């Protein structure tokens, strides 16, 4: 091998020398030179500077200081390196030819080449040509190739040995792991008997899975049949439906995933305990996992199937209820096959997600853990307790504080802040309290048994307490208030007082005159300006991930601006006799939200949740940070109300009425009038009432009107030139139904989830409580006292979390009608409905809890 390596080095050495001395090496001023040729040219020119000056058509004096020739000298000096390398290369090749020692010539040549290459990268004067690159390549090849040739056989030998070793190990593993044969029929009998006897551990799984699958089926089914109702405007399949879905689907998914995570965690641990004996008797892990996987798959399929069956019963019932409630004659269809397929896929995803969260259980199952139960005391959290308590309190206060301003709407994130605060208070505050309490034996010895769960299982008990608290807070702070507000909502017809509401332009006057004369409509024409806000929806990830250099955010909101006189006229047109003047000054506004009680509170302008909305009258214009104040001046809100002046077209999100003082409105009108030539925007608010005999003709004529003003919807397709009652009414009806159904279902889910979590917790604790009960019985504690002790322990989760949830939710219950601007009568109705629902929730909770407690006490005492 060494011989071949030497021959290789000899040949490359000659080639390198040849390239260095004979090949074109560099290119300068249109001429290619060999190295020696370049030196000759320099000498002929009379020196480097002369040469460089001539090449660049400058004087020698200029050349001395010019950047063009700055690197001439360094590059000239470094050119000696390849020359030396060439000589050495030649020498080395000759020595190799005569089989003489070459000492370290190869290394020196390599280093010379490396330094020269480095210098070429730093000092740039001429352009290297092919000879340069070839020589560099050959030097590298020589350095590596020779080594490879020498070591090639060694490398191959090692590779072969490694391969053989791996093959041998693989064969050895195969031999050791070989477990031939098949399991007998008795194996399956044993597995089936074991599975059947532990039905409790998978019953929870199946019940929970059934509930989730049924709920998903009903939800998707509802979406299908409600979607089949929509007519011209895609409310239900669009934002309104999404808005409703966004309110409760995350909760449903969160509760489902949380329950599944707990159940699967419990299921896996229980199964591993059940199979503990099998493990100690030597069942292979792979076989065990296969068995558990088959059980798991069976549970998933069974629960999916039962869920679909329950859904198939529930959905038609719900559909019938809806048709009856909405008094519909339209055909309502449901594609059951498609709904079942979608339900199954989503259900599998939910289970998959929950399984992934529990992945650590699958990966790190420990044999000894499956046999030996842990009886270690759970440590109290010890670090950062006071900061945790303070932060927790701050989060709760912040959550309530933001909610009460109404500027953050009723976003779920506010509730999440509260929950996070509760979590910190429970863990940090609870731990601090326990540590204080336990400091003096005289204090806790009297209640030694009662505080045992908190003393030894603080983290577990705290975890379940927080989970239950979360469930109750969602029920009392979010969904019961929302359901109450939905129940007391105005009748649909009151939300659309006019048959048609048009946003007309200046040149539409003749159109409406003609309409009036032909069809004798009741027509009111009010002056208005189109208003744009900076941001028409809550700031979200959408805005975060699409930032703009100028500071613009989207989408903007659009509303209707009127004067105070018009406001009074509009109210009187609706039969209000005594309208108090608003007394607005310039830059002050009164907002009239066009929404019903069920719509969530929201600011007019979501931009930075400021107290002062920014409004631009007329057409929307792009802006920057610098021009924002001029184009979108901020206004002070003097007062707000919720009152239908035109109609609930977009759920109050847009097309709300903003009232200015008469003088200020005139100013705005003049500004808008000036820009109308460039950007035509609506300037007349026209309300139309017609009799039923002419309704269709008026509707058809207004279609032409809509076509003419299609560009009014360029910013947002939901903003229309004409809003007609017939189109909106079924959608509003469907929306109300969907909301009530959805909120009711969610509240029931939350109630069931709370009871389920309680059941799960005490199912897992039964054995430990039973052992403790037996011990206390042996020490002579009477049964009555033991039962009282168990009830005391359970009360923390049964009623403690409920009371805490109610108290914390009181803020939200009280503030909801305030931020939604309910009238006095509405507040009263809302309060009554809320109290009724709360009472119902508490009653159901207490009833089921009574039976659960009895069940567990019986289990523990037996």
């Amino acid at each position, binding site marked *: 091998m060494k011989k071949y390596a030497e021959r290789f080095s000899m040949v490359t050495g000659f080639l390198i020398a040849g390239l260095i001395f004979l090949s074109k090496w560099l290119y300068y001023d249109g001429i290619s030179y060999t190295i020696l040729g370049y030196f000759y040219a320099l000498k002929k020119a009379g020196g480097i500077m002369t040469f460089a000056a001539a090449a660049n058509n400058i004087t020698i004096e200029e050349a001395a200081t010019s950047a063009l020739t700055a690197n001439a000298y360094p590059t000239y000096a470094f050119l000696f390196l390849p020359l030396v390398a060439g000589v050495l290369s030649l020498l080395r090749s000759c020595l190799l030819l005569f089989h003489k020692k070459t000492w370290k010539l190869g290394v020196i040549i390599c280093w010379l080449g490396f330094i020269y290459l480095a210098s070429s990268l730093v000092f740039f004067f001429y352009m290297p040509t092919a000879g340069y690159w070839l020589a560099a390549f050959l030097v590298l090849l020589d350095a590596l190739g020779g080594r490879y040739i020498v070591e090639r056989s060694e490398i191959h030998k090692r590779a072969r040995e490694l391969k053989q070793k791996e093959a041998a190990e693989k064969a050895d593993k195969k031999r050791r*792991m070989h477990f031939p044969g098949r399991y007998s029929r*008795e194996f399956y009998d*044993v597995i089936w008997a074991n599975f059947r*006897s532990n039905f409790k551990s998978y019953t929870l799984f199946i019940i929970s899975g059934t509930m989730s699958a049924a709920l998903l089926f009903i939800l998707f089914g509802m979406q299908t049949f409600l979607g089949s109702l929509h007519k011209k405007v895609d409310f239900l399949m669009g934002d309104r439906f999404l808005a409703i879905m966004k309110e409760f689907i995350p909760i449903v998914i969160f509760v489902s995933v949380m329950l599944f995570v707990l159940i699967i965690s419990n299921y896996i641990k229980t199964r591993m305990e059940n199979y503990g004996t099998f493990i*100690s008797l*030597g069942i292979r892990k792979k076989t065990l996992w296969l068995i558990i996987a088959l059980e798991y798959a069976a549970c998933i399929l069974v629960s999916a199937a039962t869920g679909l069956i329950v859904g198939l019963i529930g959905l038609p019932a719900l559909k019938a209820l809806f048709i009856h409630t909405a008094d519909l004659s339209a055909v309502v269809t449901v594609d059951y096959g498609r709904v079942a397929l979608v339900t199954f896929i989503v259900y599998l995803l939910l289970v998959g997600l929950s399984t992934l969260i529990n992945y650590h259980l699958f990966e790190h199952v420990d044999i000894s853990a499956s046999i030996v139960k842990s009886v*270690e005391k759970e440590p109290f959290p010890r670090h950062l307790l006071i900061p945790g308590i303070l932060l927790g309190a701050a989060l709760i206060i912040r959550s309530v504080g933001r909610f009460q301003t109404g500027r953050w709407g009723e976003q779920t994130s506010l509730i999440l802040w509260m929950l996070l605060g509760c979590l910190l208070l429970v863990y940090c505050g609870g731990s601090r309290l326990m540590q204080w309490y336990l400091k003096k034996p005289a204090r806790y010895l009297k209640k030694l048994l009662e505080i045992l769960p908190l003393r030894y299982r603080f983290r577990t008990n705290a975890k379940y307490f927080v989970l239950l608290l979360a469930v109750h807070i969602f029920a009392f702070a979010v969904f019961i208030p929302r359901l109450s507000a939905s129940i007391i909502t105005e009748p649909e017809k009151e939300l659309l007082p006019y048959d048609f509401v048009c946003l007309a332009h200046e040149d539409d006057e003749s159109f409406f005159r003609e309409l009036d004369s032909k069809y004798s409509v009741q027509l009111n024409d009010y002056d208005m300006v189109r208003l744009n806000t900076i941001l028409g929806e809550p700031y979200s990830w959408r805005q975060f991930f699409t930032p703009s250099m100028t500071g613009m955010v989207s989408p903007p909101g659009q509303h209707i601006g009127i004067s105070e006189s018009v406001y009074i006229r509009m109210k009187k047109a609706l039969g209000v006799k005594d309208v108090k003047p608003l007394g607005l000054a310039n830059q002050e506004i009164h907002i009239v939200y066009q929404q019903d009680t069920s719509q969530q509170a929201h600011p007019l302008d979501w931009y930075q949740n400021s107290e002062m909305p920014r409004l631009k009258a007329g057409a929307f214009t792009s802006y920057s940070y610098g021009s924002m104040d001029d184009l979108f001046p901020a206004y002070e809100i003097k007062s707000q109300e919720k009152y239908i002046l035109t109609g609930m077209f977009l759920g109050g999100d847009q097309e709300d009425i903003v009232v200015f003082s008469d003088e200020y409105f005139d100013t705005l009108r003049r500004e808008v009038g000036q820009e109308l030539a460039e950007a035509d925007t609506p300037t007349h608010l026209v309300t139309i009432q017609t009799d039923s005999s002419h309704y269709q003709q008026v509707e058809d004529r207004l279609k032409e009107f809509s076509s003419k003003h299609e560009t009014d919807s360029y910013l947002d397709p939901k903003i229309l030139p004409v809003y007609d009652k017939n189109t909106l009414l079924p959608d509003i009806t469907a929306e109300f139904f969907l909301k009530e159904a959805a909120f009711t279902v969610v509240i029931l889910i939350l109630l069931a989830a709370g009871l389920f979590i309680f059941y799960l917790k005490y199912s897992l604790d039964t054995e430990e409580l039973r052992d403790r009960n037996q011990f206390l019985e042996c020490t002579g504690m009477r049964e009555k006292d033991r039962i009282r002790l168990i009830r005391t322990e359970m009360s923390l989760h049964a009623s403690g979390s409920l009371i805490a949830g109610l108290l914390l939710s009181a803020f939200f219950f009280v503030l909801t009608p305030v931020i939604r601007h309910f009238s006095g009568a509405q507040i009263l109705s809302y309060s009554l409905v809320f109290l009724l629902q709360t009472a119902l929730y508490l009653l159901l909770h207490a009833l089921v809890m009574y039976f659960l407690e009895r069940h567990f006490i019986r289990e523990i005492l037996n």
Partner: protein
Amino acid sequence: MNTIIEVKNLTREYGTGNIQVLKGIDFCAFEEEFVAIMGRSGGGKSTLLRVLGLMDQPTEGEVFFRDENSKDLWDSQLADIRRREIGFVHQDARLLDCLTVEQNIKLPMILDKKDSKTMQESMEEQTRRFGIADLVDKYPTELSGGEKQRAALCRALINNPELILADEPTGNLDSQSGELVIQALETINRDMKKTVILVTHDPWIASYSKKAVLLKDGVILDTLLRPDGEGEEVQKAYYEMILGKLPEL
């Protein structure tokens, strides 16, 4: 005599290293040996037994089963050893209530993919040996403590393992039943030539062994050897020897 199981510098910790149950133990058991491991509660006896039974991995140290280091074995190999080479008798018998006595006894063979005929023959042989042949169709809930423990012994022997590990097998039994069980273990060792390692806190039960290892706070305090000879006198002397050492535990 060949070593059947050996541990070197065995340490076992729980939690985050707060609780050290076994501290650098060196122990070995030879073929056909009958060893008793004694100690107070919490001394590490059961933990040691679980490590010997390859159900628990040491935190430090090594476990050799027939000169094979357990760390070099895959989980499946450890399972194979537990199934074929080791029979475990728990304090509470650990029979599965959902299976008949017959199914419980056959379980190791079922897991070893043995055919029904072989299983049946072995089961009948073991049940005859321990006098529970008429109980095979019953469920564990219908048996007394002694009968359950004998069924557990049958299960432990069904695959003809070389090593029997018994964790306080007489702990839950009355003296008469306990006597039957310990005599059965003695028979297993003497006549069937199996290695038996027994954990107990009862010095009389320990006196049936040939070697008593005294464990205190996770370390081996002493190893006592049974005097040469047979008979009650020898056993009594051995018992007195063990009893004398108990205060040190």
